[in-house]
């Protein structure tokens, strides 16, 4: 077993019982994340990206629940812990960064107090030590004049600076894992570039593992080491980012890449995937992507393809099931 593996997710299923049916927003998802690695989780809305992140943080709202599978952090199971035990993991061992920095900060508390509260919850420091620590963490995320801004309220920061504060909060207790759910989606491109550079730098310096959830293939390409492509709650392709994006194999990954307007601005028509992500109440049988797939075969409609290794990645597609290359 690789000692460097920090997070292991094995056959994770999240279910939400409703009056008519049991919905499965996350369906038999498996992956692992090593220390110092950035794993991208990409997919369109409804693919189950955020639900996957919530499951790992133990934040699934009832009646939703983890129905089966395991989540291991440094080899210990964390999926079946009571809420009291979670308090020692969330914030301490797993930090979180969400999309909207305005809603993840308390608007009525000075940012310094929010940082000090987090630090003192998780580390045995006095109030003044914690405050010094808070200033340091604001400096670390690149907030100018941190010592004087620590007593400002969140609304006194700009969008990019606010997201830096959120990252400082997530990092305050030196977690081993950061789950960043669309951390730059609400920000402008210039600020997005700054925040991504910061996350990458912190991750490499501290060997923090990052699970980066995003819908943006460009962010995936530039920031991540490996990528998992999700569709209808299932991993359809996972591997090294460069392998998967430069030579996408699964028809969904290929479609996604081809529909992204290219940086070189080629004038041809954009590829379009017909239809839309299925609703959770009506996931197609067999391969969930089969109604939109341009290479659908008979068995795609009846049998669900398992995730199998192919070259250096893993794929869930019948066309790659015989381990030989398909042109």
């Amino acid at each position, binding site marked *: 077993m690789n000692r460097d593996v920090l997070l292991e997710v094995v056959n994770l299923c999240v279910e939400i019982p409703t009056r008519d049916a049991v919905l499965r927003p996350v369906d038999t998802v498996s992956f692992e994340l090593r220390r110092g690695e950035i794993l991208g989780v990409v997919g*369109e*809305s409804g693919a189950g990206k955020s639900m996957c992140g919530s499951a790992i943080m133990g934040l699934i709202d009832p009646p939703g629940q983890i129905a089966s599978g395991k989540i291991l952090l440094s080899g210990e199971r964390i999926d079946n812990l009571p809420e009291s035990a979670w308090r020692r993991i969330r914030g301490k061992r797993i930090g979180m960064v969400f999309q909207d920095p305005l809603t993840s900060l308390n608007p009525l508390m000075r940012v310094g107090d929010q940082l000090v509260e987090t630090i003192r919850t998780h580390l045995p420091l006095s109030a003044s030590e914690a405050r010094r620590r808070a200033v340091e963490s604001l400096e670390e995320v690149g907030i100018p004049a941190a010592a004087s801004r620590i007593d400002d309220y969140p609304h006194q920061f*700009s*969008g*990019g*600076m606010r997201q830096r504060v959120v990252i400082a909060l997530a990092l305050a207790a030196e977690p081993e894992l950061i789950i960043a759910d669309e951390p730059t989606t609400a920000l*402008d*491109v*210039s*600020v*997005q*570039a*700054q925040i*991504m*550079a910061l996350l*990458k730098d912190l991750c490499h310096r501290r060997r923090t593992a990052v699970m980066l959830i995003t*819908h*943006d*293939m*460009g*962010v*995936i*390409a*530039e920031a991540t080491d490996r990528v998992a492509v999700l569709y209808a709650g299932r991993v359809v392709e996972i591997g090294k*980012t*460069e392998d998967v*994006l*430069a030579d996408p194999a699964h028809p969904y990954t290929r*479609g*996604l*890449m081809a*529909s*992204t*307007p*290219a*940086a070189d*601005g080629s004038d041809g*028509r*954009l*590829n*379009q*995937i*017909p239809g*839309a*992500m299925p609703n959770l109440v009506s996931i197609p049988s067999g391969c969930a992507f089969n109604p939109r797939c341009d290479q659908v075969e008979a068995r795609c409609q009846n049998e669900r393809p398992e995730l199998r290794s192919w070259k250096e990645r893993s794929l869930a597609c019948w066309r790659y099931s015989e381990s030989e290359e398909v042109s």
Partner: protein
Amino acid sequence: MMMHQSPFVQVSDLGRDFDLSAPLLSRLLEGVPKRSLTAASGVSFSIERGETFALVGESGSGKSTIGKMLVGLLEPTSGGVTIDGKDLFGTLDKASRMALRRRIQMIFQNPYASLNPRWRVGDIIAEPITAFGLAEGKGVQARVSQLLEQVGLNAKDAKKYPHEFSGGQRQRIAIARALASEPEFIVCDEPTSALDVSVQSQVLNLMRDLQRELGLAYLFISHDLSVVRYMADKIGVLYLGELVEVADRDTLFAKPRHPYTQMLIDAAPRIDAFGRTAERAKGEIPDPIDRPSGCSYHPRCPVVEDICRRTAPEAQLFADGRALVSCHRAQE
């Protein structure tokens, strides 16, 4: 026949201020001065029939304010807009104004908010048709069916409500509604930013097809340079309400001349740039109430000089007139 004609859509020196002053009484009692925010100033460009002009810029750059003025939803503080030679804000009589308004439509960013959830899709699309008297009786239904099919939906969808559709389909409905008044000019304000990429490509392709079929002029507002590059013929880059660079698409991407344009292009994540860290990005768009002196980009500019802090640059032509750039340091 060669004849000098004015462009189809002509925007001249358009500006808009918003008054942010405290109420009169507080101003008198506390002696605070009036404050105003300049959302757009000195904006000039033109769009021909069948052409797409894109406005790009970050949030707060004034993109949407300009879009709203071009459809007549906001009055400008200065400058004006003519469409097919007619002044949009001039002293037209009511009938001519109605006639002009019919020729301009808008598509909004969020198709979850821009369609009335209590109306059937058929009624949503029929409203402009009846409001402008473009068809009567059975003709209205026939036109609705035709429009639905034109945007890739089914005539039977007219009976459904917006919530029964996905985001991409809703944006198609919004496009059908925009087309219902038989417009010649459509302002599209971030029409695909709320959509997933696979659906975004469907909507962008549809918009291009419709443009070709109907000879529409588009003002395409977006923050996403790769989308703009796919859609636009000409591009205007906005910073703090001013156009810093206007050029045709190929000229702009081949050689961005304004440092802000260079930064925007550089900072946009690229699907083929593995492990790259964009370097040029620095700072954030400043508060438009407190705009910097001289060139408003100077606090973030990597090639700033003394003159940039003192004097606002004049727009100059480059690349044989294909690029108009407002920068002291811009070079051929």
